[in-house]
């Protein structure tokens, strides 16, 4: 595989075109404390030539001071940025890293493995297309591995690479690898992943990360990087119905009134019938304005300014959606919370909920169940403490438009804000309307699973919060 071919080798124009037309993949790495996450990212950066000479010099100096690899360069130090972390020898926050090949650009969220940092992992996972879950080949699946797999599935990631690391330390044993893969499948089966790709590797030595491993002729699959270059991205968001949360009304003069926002999902074109939620008023799209000229259509991920055919009332907090698939408008929502604050949450607490571009007061009317982070099983809870996961019911001071998180991550995810400290107190995932009698809006696969019945579908029910 060639990384960063020089521009001279195929001409500047072709070179520029290739780099300007790459896609991006966002992924998260997770694993237990010593599974080698930071080393793996360091290896990806190093082997794709993203590490510069002055950084290597700094790394050699730092490796002597803080390294855990003896005299060798400790690649993890490339990623463990903050001084406090170096001193403790652990990763305590989400670090974002960037590298690119000719095929794709990558944004990596390196997240902590410690239990107390669930919120950081949830944050990293919320925008990731793929999760790389590390397992130490010697240790096997740990409690942490199960928690991370569960979290990743709760946050809506559909594709997982199971990176079985430190294979060199088990002599590249195929049977050990197969044993771990089977154990993971047994646990993750009900979690609803679209794909789990297992890859035996050694991050420390660089085997099967960017380049193939010499020690594992029995492994017929690709190295991790090649998988990351080829895995599909954002297919769910593209396929979902059109949603645009209005951020700002652009009214430079009496002739122009546009609704600016980021398209969360789907596509839109002039002439499309739309509904402005939560008011429910209807209109059609007249123009898709951008500074580069009007667009014939726009898709998820684009920031645009929509001009509607009618003078209807819409403002920040409104959501413009396709008339084919309205949103649920409600002042009461069931949600799964990832409690992030250091303070406790008790029923009756009032917080701010920021849902898309609207902020409302939210009262926690009930804490329905706490979720065991390892088994996904519900258990009773009178209060929540930092890093608890729990299902709650929120009563809002006005009606807002929402989707179930399982149907749409961007219109189904929200944050809770402590009104006094102004800190972000929780991440929230909106659950499907339990009182609704109709299941017509469910994704096909979920309905199929549910009608299948049996143990797996019940587990899926619990895990998916549906």
């Amino acid at each position, binding site marked *: 595989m060639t990384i960063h071919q020089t521009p001279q080798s195929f001409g500047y124009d072709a070179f520029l075109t290739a780099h300007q037309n790459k896609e991006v993949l966002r992924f998260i790495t997770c694993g237990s404390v010593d599974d080698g996450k930071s080393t793996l990212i360091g290896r990806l950066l190093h082997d794709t030539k993203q590490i510069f*000479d002055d950084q290597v010099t700094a790394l050699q100096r730092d490796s002597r001071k803080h390294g855990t690899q003896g005299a060798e360069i400790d690649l993890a130090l490339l990623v463990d940025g903050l001084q406090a972390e170096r001193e403790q020898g652990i990763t305590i926050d989400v670090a*974002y890293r960037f590298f690119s090949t000719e095929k794709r650009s990558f944004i990596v969220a390196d997240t902590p493995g410690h239990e107390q940092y669930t919120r*950081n992992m949830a944050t990293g996972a919320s925008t990731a297309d793929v999760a790389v879950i590390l397992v130490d080949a010697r240790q096997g699946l740990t409690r942490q591995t199960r928690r991370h797999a569960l979290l990743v599935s709760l946050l809506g990631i559909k594709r997982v690479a199971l990176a079985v690391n430190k294979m060199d330390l088990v002599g590249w044993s195929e049977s050990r690898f197969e044993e771990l893969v089977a154990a993971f499948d047994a646990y993750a089966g009900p979690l609803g992943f679209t794909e789990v790709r297992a890859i035996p590797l050694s991050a420390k030595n660089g085997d099967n990360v960017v380049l193939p491993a010499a020690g594992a002729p029995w492994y017929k699959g690709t190295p991790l990087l090649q998988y990351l270059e080829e895995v599909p991205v954002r297919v769910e968001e593209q396929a979902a119905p059109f949603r645009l949360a209005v951020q700002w009304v652009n009214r430079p003069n009496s002739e122009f009134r546009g609704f600016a926002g980021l398209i969360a999902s789907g596509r839109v074109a002039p002439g499309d019938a739309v509904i402005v939620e939560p008011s429910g008023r209807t209109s059609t799209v007249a123009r898709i304005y951008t500074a580069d000229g009007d667009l014939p259509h726009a898709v998820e*991920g684009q920031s645009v300014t929509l001009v509607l055919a009618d003078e209807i009332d819409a403002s920040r907090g409104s959501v413009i959606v396709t008339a084919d698939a309205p949103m649920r408008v409600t002042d009461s929502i069931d949600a799964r919370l990832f409690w992030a604050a250091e303070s406790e949450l008790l029923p009756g607490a009032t917080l701010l909920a920021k849902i898309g571009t609207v902020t409302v007061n939210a009262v926690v009317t009930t804490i329905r169940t706490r979720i065991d982070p390892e088994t996904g099983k519900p258990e009773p809870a009178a209060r929540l403490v930092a890093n608890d996961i729990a299902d709650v019911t929120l009563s809002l001071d006005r009606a807002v438009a929402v989707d179930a998180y399982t149907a749409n991550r961007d219109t189904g995810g929200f944050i809770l804000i402590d009104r006094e400290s102004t800190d972000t107190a929780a991440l929230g995932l909106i659950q499907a309307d339990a009182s609704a009698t109709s299941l017509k809006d469910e994704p096909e696969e979920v309905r199929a699973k549910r009608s299948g019945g049996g143990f797996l579908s019940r587990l899926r029910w619990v895990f998916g919060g549906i």
Partner: protein
Amino acid sequence: MSAAPLTTHAASRSERLTHLQRLEAESIHIMRETVAETENPVMLYSIGKDSSVLLHLALKAFAPGRLPFPLMHIDTTWKFKEMIAFRDQRAKDLGLDLIVHTNQEGLARGVGPITHGSEVHTDVMKTQGLRQALDKHKFDAAFGGARRDEEASRAKERIFSLRTAQHRWDPKRQRAEPWHVYNLRKKRGESLRVFPISNWTELDVWLYIEQENIPIVPLYFAKPRPVVEREGQLILVDDERLPLEPGETPKEISVRFRTLGDYPLTGAVESGAATLPEIIGETLATRTSERQGRVIDKDGAGAMERKKQEGYF
């Protein structure tokens, strides 16, 4: 599994967004959130390439309207002459509302990089100057062009970074930023630093400048310039304030700058790259990170992290 339902609405290959399109859209979204949720935002304009990209993105974000915030340059009085000329020309061409602030107290004391060293100079003229200006104009949000790929402690910086009334950054009080939902709430006196191009790399910035044809300071392009070598850095003799050592004579070397700051603190690189494609080619082939040309980053281990806690941008 379940591939069938995806095909009806799924965008065709040609509708997939490129990396640069997604980065642009994310940055525009961040700017619009800031304008919608803060009282008095400002864009910190450092005149460099990242600022040029930031300004271009802002113009796009609010078109066809005008920029709903002013630009502000913290002038240490030690910028390259060409930077100041470029700044004033851009402000004139685009009709920008530009504020230029200099720490007058520091200037009166004669604080400068040559007399006081990089650490004191940067603290007084840049960090304190910035704090003065933010306080004076009561800005509650300030856009900056920092990127996470620049330096290790920045890799963990949030897009919306809360600062105390004293402008201090607390790495332990960082807010989670899931999805595209940002918490812009703050207490009285607190303010936000906003980094819309957090997720861009140096290469992305260059590719975007090329794609969008964004004007940048000519110092980024190689040409013969008079430089002296100091502690491994090529320093441009930009004016008479740079004292020459005995026997030291400036050499005309073809150089360019990968980052721009105060000229005595900004090292040039030897280069023949006089066009954007050549610069991009060099960026890919290069073996040193762009901050290598920044003297201030080497003021001891964890230098940048400490400066940030003290209120450096």
